[in-house]
């Protein structure tokens, strides 16, 4: 499984596809302060990104992937309402 839900933290691993969007949305809805570990994420589907943006997810572990680190992670750290 590319995304592992671990209490309040979701750990993304490798290429994460649109198939994960519904489980991710359900998990973020249930979590109080959802955090994501993007350390090992190499590719993030747009569908997943929008869930993370709406859910005000904070980044627990920064992605190592340069593209995600430069342009995507900043959106999650301080997403305005």
């Amino acid at each position, binding site marked *: 499984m590319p995304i592992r839900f671990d209490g309040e933290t979701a750990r993304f691993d490798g290429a994460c596809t649109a198939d994960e969007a519904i489980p991710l949305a359900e998990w973020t809805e249930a979590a109080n302060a959802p955090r994501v570990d993007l350390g090992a994420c190499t590719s993030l*589907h747009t569908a997943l*990104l929008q869930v993370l943006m*709406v859910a005000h997810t904070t980044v627990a572990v920064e992605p190592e992937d340069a593209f995600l680190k430069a342009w995507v992670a900043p959106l999650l750290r301080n997403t305005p309402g």
Partner: protein
Amino acid sequence: MSELFDQFVLEARELLDAAGASLLRLERDPADAGAINDLFRALHTLKGATGLFDMAPFTRLVHGGEDALMAVREGRAAISGDLADRLLQLLDLGAAWVDRLEAERALPDGAEAMAREHETLLRAALGGTDAGTAGQDAAFAWVDDLSTAEGERLGGRAVTAVNYEPNADCFFSGDDPLELCRRIPDLLLLRIEPVEPWPSLAELDPYRCALRFRALSGAAKPDVERLFRSVPDQVRIAAVTVKTKPRAAEPPPKGGVEDLAGAMLREQRRILALSGSVAEVEGRQGAVVRAVRNILTALGRHGDAAELERAAGNPESLRGFIEGLAGGVAPAAPISPTPAAPSAGRRALRVDADRMDRLMALVGELVVAKSRLPYLAREAQEGQRADTLALGIKEAQGQIDSIVAELQDAVLRLRVLPLSRVFEPLPRLVRDASRRLGKSVELEMSGAETEADKDVLDILGEPLLHLVRNSLDHGVEPPDARRAAGKPEGAVIRVRAFQDRDGVVVEVSDDGAGIDAEAVRRKAVERGQVTVEQAAAMEDADALRLVFLPGLSTAEGVTDLSGRGVGMDAVRNAVEQAGGRVEIASTRGAGTTIRLVLPATMMITRVMVVEAAGALYGIPVTLVSGMQRVPRDAIRRVKHAESVVLNDTVLPLLRLRRLLGQTEEERVEGSEAVLAVDLGGHRLALVVDAFRERADVVLKPMTGVLARLRGYAGTAVLGDGRLLLVLNLRELL
């Protein structure tokens, strides 16, 4: 400039609210010229205010709205639902920007592009033909609007700009826009933004793409185009040059006063040449002479000023004289906006000017009264006779007493505001929700001028919104259901406020489906909140009150409007915390009325004073629905539970002594003093030793070790100095 900025925030909010209200009026009645004028004026004033600060995008945004209204006012366009939507969105964006300005002293990044976009959308909604070309121009406006850091990094570079707005259903054709952007060659900048404001998480459909992408690339345009060849309809690509950002505003030009003086003198010459009636011309001439005299004096040209007095007698010589003065001076310097300085934002309380004046007048009286005291002190020192002195002191005391009492009253009144404040969001709520739900709903409001303490208003706001949402959502039936029931398709929600003996009453009623008392009973039993027997024994009116219990929402489905988990119990809690109560009445098929009763002020609590075991206790009168002496033999006892019939209703009977842990004492009286208490959904009878008076008290919360005692709302001191414990019955029971 911080005060000025705060003033702006305050005024901008008011103007946006006023504009919103006028717009709703206008949408209901497009022929309402008053509404369009009010709306226009609000935007116009707002535009002027934004112009004082460094917020050109805001001015632009408001200007766009003003332009659209001008078209409507001049009959070039009609106010459509679409146009109203756009204008409401514009006002919403304005409100969001004001919040942002208050918090961060700056508009969000991309504000200019957002303003341009609204302009374009408005033009489209007006049905203008230039929407397409304007869209082309505006599409890449964001490139000119980069943040300072981005501008410094990219300033002056020729780059390829990408506007990528994926179709909402693009995921189903296998597109992944984010991954596509990853592949943009020499990516310099990527902005990922929601196309529309985010919905709540619950409303988000993850499989509809709600994001758009803006990118700058260092690669050539054809290279970038190649990447996006599979989505040509969703992308716009252009070669652009990033503007170099100026570091700071230019300093004002030197010699401005001289230039301005020259321009002003030329203008005075022009004014003299204007036509008009004799009175008008003479009026202008007087003002011109004085203006010119002052200008010359200010410039230190006293000789010319003296010359002016000689020339002023004759219009011709005056004109010639001023022409001579004004000749050959450079035109006035151009005008540029002023930057706004930061300041700390805080909540402001709008005070009615009359009330402030009254306060000032009282302070003045107090100063006068006080000035008597040094005089009395001197008399005392000089050995004035004691009785004369006493008389003087008494007089001064009487005066000061009455002023202080008035001051107290005046200060309390400062906090009193009309309910219109909490009514304001309702028209918009009803409009948007009825559009969304496909229901036709008329909102009737009355009593907006009713006044209450600011704290009470703050508490009232949320429950009121909730009740109206509830009516929209669950109360009002869809049009076909209403038709089937033989009702008019258009439903009515009435919000009514008025002042009552107990305080402020706010009623929300609808002519919808009403609440099924049987369904409420069933649900309460299912949830184990009452037993089957209890439910069966309940009158319908009592069963309806069960909806105020946690988790007892009657509607099967949960819609987006009423949200999840927040129910009527939240309304009840909020109102009761403020010392009020909630009442409900509903008839199947005819509608529901919910009534909130709140004390008009929270600082003063009106209590019923009762006696128990030799001490005095207070119970908020809002909770007391009756009091009477009941013969002992009318009290029925089953095992340890007692009950009594009051006003044809069987109420459980409790004894205050026992609740307080005091022993019962055998008394000889043949009757008991019984209070009927209404705890909102829970009615009971309470036996006390004796009734005392009603009193208005200032409630002080319990402090120190007492704070841990349960069952008390606080302490208060009665007029004669006796201490009173005010009970929190809900906790006590």
